């Protein structure tokens, strides 16, 4: 069967702020008003008091076997889309068509009952997520092995740690084998090893021909897994297209809001990224040069300043760190009202991913910070898929050939059995 497996067209979703009528005492006057004012029959486009649009005119379609990303800030409407896709809610207007069994890796542990054992919960949660008992029975060993919780199968899950709880949930959900899989930030479950497992499992699901809708803040994961993405902002679709374009657009719009203490004597006023030609830019290729520019101003005189920049990866691990002091500049002095601009040129020997820039003003001698601005800028490196990790060490394949003679010797060697 061809055609989109998931088709969303012209979807609107309206929500109401504040309380709904919670008891009959509130309902009866409201009903009376409704009957008189015909508010209940109002056109769906109209917004009543306290109502707002969570989604407006959202359309996209996903082809069979495709991995599709949805990105956007908190409150952009991502979760609402997921709830509509999975059928938990119905759109106010518009249609959603899903061809086949849809399963969501969203609330993977919602079906657990604390008093039941791990084994019982695998069956319970499995059926809740859409499997039949026969299917669960067939995959039971795989589920248990995936979770790594063999020893605790007969322990009630209320005695599990939160990590174990989440792992069991994901393990069940990962074995559902749906036609369309919706994934929402679940890859952050468990420890590093378990995350790797989840990632591999997702890739398996994709390569087996399932369609995946992936919702995440993790831009690297989106760019790795999904060829196409959608950018949501305040309930509207800003862009649908190749993930790279969408991510670039997202990053260029993401302005880190920052609250500054007005009393602060020394503060960073701007951190910006420019390409070598001076144009502002947030998406780079591995090996590109970038100018990281930090501006600061002083309300009172300071004479022992050093400017520090730090690049961190998505997990906030420092990848790179340098400062004016270490680069040979002396302490910077600022009189009251004076400002400062400092530009570092770096070459991005980074593999693909999302990185953030932290900027600090340190006391020159003691290296103690006066002022810091974390995640002052975000940029994305669209590297090649030839490397993974953070550092791009520019690998060159020097040799990779079969030393034929050895292989043949082994192959022709008679087998000795003692």
């Amino acid at each position, binding site marked *: 069967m061809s055609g989109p497996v998931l088709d969303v067209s012209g979807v609107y979703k309206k929500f109401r702020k504040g309380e709904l009528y919670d008891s009959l005492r509130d309902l009866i006057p409201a009903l009376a008003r409704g009957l008189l004012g015909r508010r209940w029959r109002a056109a769906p486009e109209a917004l009543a008091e306290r109502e707002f649009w969570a989604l407006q005119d959202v359309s996209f379609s996903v082809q069979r076997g495709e991995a599709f990303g949805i990105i956007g800030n908190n409150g952009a409407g991502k979760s609402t889309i997921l709830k509509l896709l999975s059928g*938990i*809610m119905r759109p106010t207007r518009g249609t959603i068509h899903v061809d086949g069994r849809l399963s*969501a890796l969203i609330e993977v542990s919602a079906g657990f009952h604390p008093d039941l054992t791990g084994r019982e919960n695998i069956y*319970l949660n499995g059926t809740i997520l*859409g499997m039949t008992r026969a299917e669960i029975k067939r995959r039971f060993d795989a589920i248990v092995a995936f979770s790594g919780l063999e020893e605790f199968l007969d322990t009630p899950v209320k005695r599990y740690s939160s990590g174990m709880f989440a792992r069991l949930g994901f393990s069940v959900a990962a074995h559902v084998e749906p036609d369309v899989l919706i994934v929402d930030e679940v890859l952050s479950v468990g420890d590093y090893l378990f995350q790797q497992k989840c990632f591999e499992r997702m890739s398996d699901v994709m390569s087996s021909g399932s369609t995946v809708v992936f919702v995440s803040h993790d831009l690297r994961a989106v760019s790795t897994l999904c060829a196409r993405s959608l950018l949501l902002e305040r309930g509207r679709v800003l862009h649908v297209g190749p993930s790279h374009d969408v991510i670039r657009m997202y990053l260029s719009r993401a302005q880190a809001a920052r609250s500054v203490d007005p009393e602060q004597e020394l503060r960073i006023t701007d951190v910006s990224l420019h390409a070598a030609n001076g144009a502002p830019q947030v998406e780079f290729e591995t090996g590109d040069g970038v100018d990281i520019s930090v501006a600061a101003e002083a309300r009172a005189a300071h004479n022992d300043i050093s400017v520090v920049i730090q690049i961190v990866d998505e997990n906030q691990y420092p990848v790179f760190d340098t400062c004016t002091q270490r680069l040979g500049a002396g302490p910077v002095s600022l009189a009251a009202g004076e400002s400062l601009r400092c530009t570092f040129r770096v070459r991005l020997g980074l593999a693909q991913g999302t990185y953030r820039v932290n900027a600090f003003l340190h006391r020159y001698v003691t290296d103690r910070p006066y002022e810091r601005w974390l995640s002052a800028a975000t940029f994305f490196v669209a590297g090649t898929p030839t490397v993974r990790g953070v550092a791009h060490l520019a690998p060159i394949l020097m040799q990779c050939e079969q030393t034929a003679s050895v292989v043949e010797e082994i192959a022709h060697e008679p087998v000795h059995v003692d």
Partner: protein
Amino acid sequence: MKQRTLLDRRDLLYMITWREIRIKYKQSVMGMLWAVLMPATIVLAGMVVRFGFSLLSGRPVALADVASVSVRAVPWAFFVSSLRFATASLVANTQLVTKIYLPREIFPIAAVGSQLLDFCVASGVLVIVLALLHVGVSVQLLWLPVLVLILVLFTISLSLLFSAGALFFRDVKYLVEVVLTFAIFFTPVFYDAAMFGRWGSILMFNPLAPLLEGFSNVVLHAPPPLPWLAYSAAVSLFAFLGAVRFFHRLEPYFAESV
């Protein structure tokens, strides 16, 4: 869409019902005895009422009266605890209702299903009690499956209505509590409708009355009140169709309104 109807998800219905039963008896000392406790209490209360009647009428309490009250107590206990449990079922499963899609009627139906097990256990005990009272068997017992079917249908109908209602308005839950507490006076559990003479037929408008009369009659070798039973069956069927419609109408708003 596939996998959206109750029939497709019968394994889920089974597991949710199983969960309700398992949870109820986990960490409970009395276990299955609870299934007998409520009907037994109703029977005791019924004995007191019957004793009062006999003092007034001067007619002693017969063994058949004890049997009759016992037979009525078991389905009544099923009806009351099913409704109580089912009304709360959607609200109690807020987690699942708001976070995962499944046919939501599963929750009230599973609630009734889990009480059905108690009903079976209590019926088993009832058979022993009746045997001890030397109540024999008769052809009329063949009516039992019909009676149970109508009872379950009616119970599920009300469960669907009240569970959806309680999800929107918590008042429904308290309303159901109040009605269930006093409904025993409007339903022939402790007494026979016949005791009211010609007024008895007014009592029979309660769809449960013909069922309870029927249960009592067929165990005591008499035919059920057929026209009234047909009325009860018709009411149950219409209630069921209406309740399913009502439930599905409201279902899209469950997640936002709970």
